[in-house]
């Protein structure tokens, strides 16, 4: 049976399991399929084991009593569950946020608002010539990105392979593993300040001199040779630039000389799904307050927690104790926490209520959205009744 791997936003669609072996999945994807039975969460209330329904009832009670509840996470679950979570946040008149507020939410928002032209990875495979990886190292974040979608595969209009039919550009602050692959027909630009490089692109496109003119000149000339070029932007781009508008202007300017598309690269399996689902509902991609009816930096989960603005949190499928800085995550101890997770994460260990769920893509099906916006239908290996949709629906009904 062909499976979809929910490990990252590549959502690889050629995974299969035969005689206990996982084929074609990268190391991270393999861990999901091979070890999904390990370290499973058990239903708990105040550290004592209970049955699932009791845990859900307790969760409803906490959320009902809370004055300022927040919902956080949701990037590894399916769109169907994300929709219900947004309903719950609306019903609670609370906050909702996911990891994208400190990940690539801003870039996804720009794409969803149509501020930068975008395309799909399948189109990239068939047509793209210049591929720019800006501030991202897919070797770590999206292992199969280069081999499955962009640089290495042969496409309909690019049949001759990577060393002739593609031009790879890697922009990073260090010589990353991906930068090492930029050899023939390629450029690696080590930047001190991303803004300078953005500026160089704009100036060279206008025919003026600039700091990185030599490399950028070559890249723009290569872009002019093709009718399809792509920039993949990662966290380095987001945090490297103080103002993303500069980058958007650059993409616009480049499009005057050659067609250049933009795709955000590198995040959780269904982060873009959450961004799109919330965008459809309220017009913002993350850090949204239903009480204030707007999105803002102060409503990011990390800020709410740091400033002690919330008294209860419903955390779905993420592990803030593990991933957030200690000064932020330690505040979780002061509030009531409900964790919905398939695994006994660090956050689950300190939570007031733990509700064990099913792993999306392995034990439950649904829809996820790839980094380029393509919707992918996941089929489970085995169906588990108590999944995120079931749990969130129960909580919604309870409220």
């Amino acid at each position, binding site marked *: 049976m062909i499976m979809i791997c929910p490990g990252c936003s590549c959502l690889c669609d050629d995974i299969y399991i035969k005689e206990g072996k996982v084929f074609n999945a990268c190391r991270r994807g393999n861990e999901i399929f091979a070890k999904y039975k390990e370290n499973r969460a058990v239903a708990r209330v105040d550290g004592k084991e209970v049955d699932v329904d009791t845990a859900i009832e307790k969760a409803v009670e906490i959320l009902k009593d809370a004055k300022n509840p927040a919902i956080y996470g949701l990037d590894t679950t399916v769109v169907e569950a994300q929709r219900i979570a947004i309903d719950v946040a609306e019903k609670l008149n609370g906050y909702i946020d996911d990891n994208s507020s400190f990940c690539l939410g801003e870039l996804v928002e720009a794409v969803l608002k149509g501020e930068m032209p975008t395309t799909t990875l399948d189109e990239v495979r068939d047509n793209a010539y210049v591929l720019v990886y800006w501030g991202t190292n897919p070797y770590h974040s999206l292992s199969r990105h280069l081999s499955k979608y962009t640089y290495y595969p042969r496409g309909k209009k690019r049949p001759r392979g990577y060393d002739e039919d593609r031009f790879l550009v890697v922009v990073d602050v260090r010589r990353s593993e991906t930068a090492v*692959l930029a050899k023939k027909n390629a450029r690696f630009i080590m930047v001190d300040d991303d803004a300078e490089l953005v500026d160089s692109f704009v100036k060279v496109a206008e025919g003026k001199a600039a700091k990185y003119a030599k490399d950028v000149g070559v890249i723009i000339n290569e872009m002019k040779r093709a009718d399809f070029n792509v920039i993949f932007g990662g966290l380095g781009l987001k945090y490297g630039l103080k103002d993303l508008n500069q980058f958007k202007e650059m993409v616009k300017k480049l499009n005057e000389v050659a067609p250049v598309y933009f795709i955000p690269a590198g995040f959780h399996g269904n982060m873009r799904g959450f961004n799109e689902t919330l965008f459809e509902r309220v017009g913002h991609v993350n850090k949204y307050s239903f009480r204030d009816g707007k999105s803002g930096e102060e409503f990011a989960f990390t800020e709410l927690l740091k400033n002690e603005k919330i008294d209860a949190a419903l955390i779905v499928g993420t592990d803030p104790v593990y991933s957030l800085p200690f000064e932020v995550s330690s505040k979780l101890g002061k509030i009531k926490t409900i964790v919905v997770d398939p695994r006994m994460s660090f956050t689950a260990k300190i939570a007031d209520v733990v509700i064990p769920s099913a792993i999306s893509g392995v034990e439950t099906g649904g829809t996820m959205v790839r980094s380029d916006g393509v919707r992918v239908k996941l089929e489970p290996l085995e169906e588990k009744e108590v999944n995120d949709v079931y749990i969130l629906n129960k909580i919604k009904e309870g409220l």
Partner: protein
Amino acid sequence: MALNPMDIYKLLPKTNCKKCGEATCMSFAFKLLNREKKLEDCKPLYEDKKYERQRKKLEEMLKPLEEATETGLIVDESLCTGCGNCVVVCPVHVEKDPKGAAVGNGPTIDDPILRVEDGVVKVINMQACRRYGKNRVLCVVCRENCPSDAIRFLEG
């Protein structure tokens, strides 16, 4: 670390005694690397006590030869992340599997040279490699595109 015949030669007796059947120690070093000869074929190295230290060094140095496949390919699974670059760039795969490995997917043929299994690359069918057999081509495309140096060849 790459093996080269000069390093091997330096540790051999360098007497050109011809006991191994080769005209010179240098040619013996080449044949050792190609696995046409074995270290044991060098009789003085084992019989004469003064070569003992050199022999031990050589044994240590030639250990990767035993791990390597017939084409000299060595895969270090502990370094591999399963990115599949090697599977997709392999020219033999591109030719034999135009709808699978050539377009970025996992191989759809039964006997690919390399395949990602359990998250790491495994050598499945070395005979199909262009480096195999008499008319071999010293192709290194898989190594060139391995971002984690998990793939290497005996010659470097």
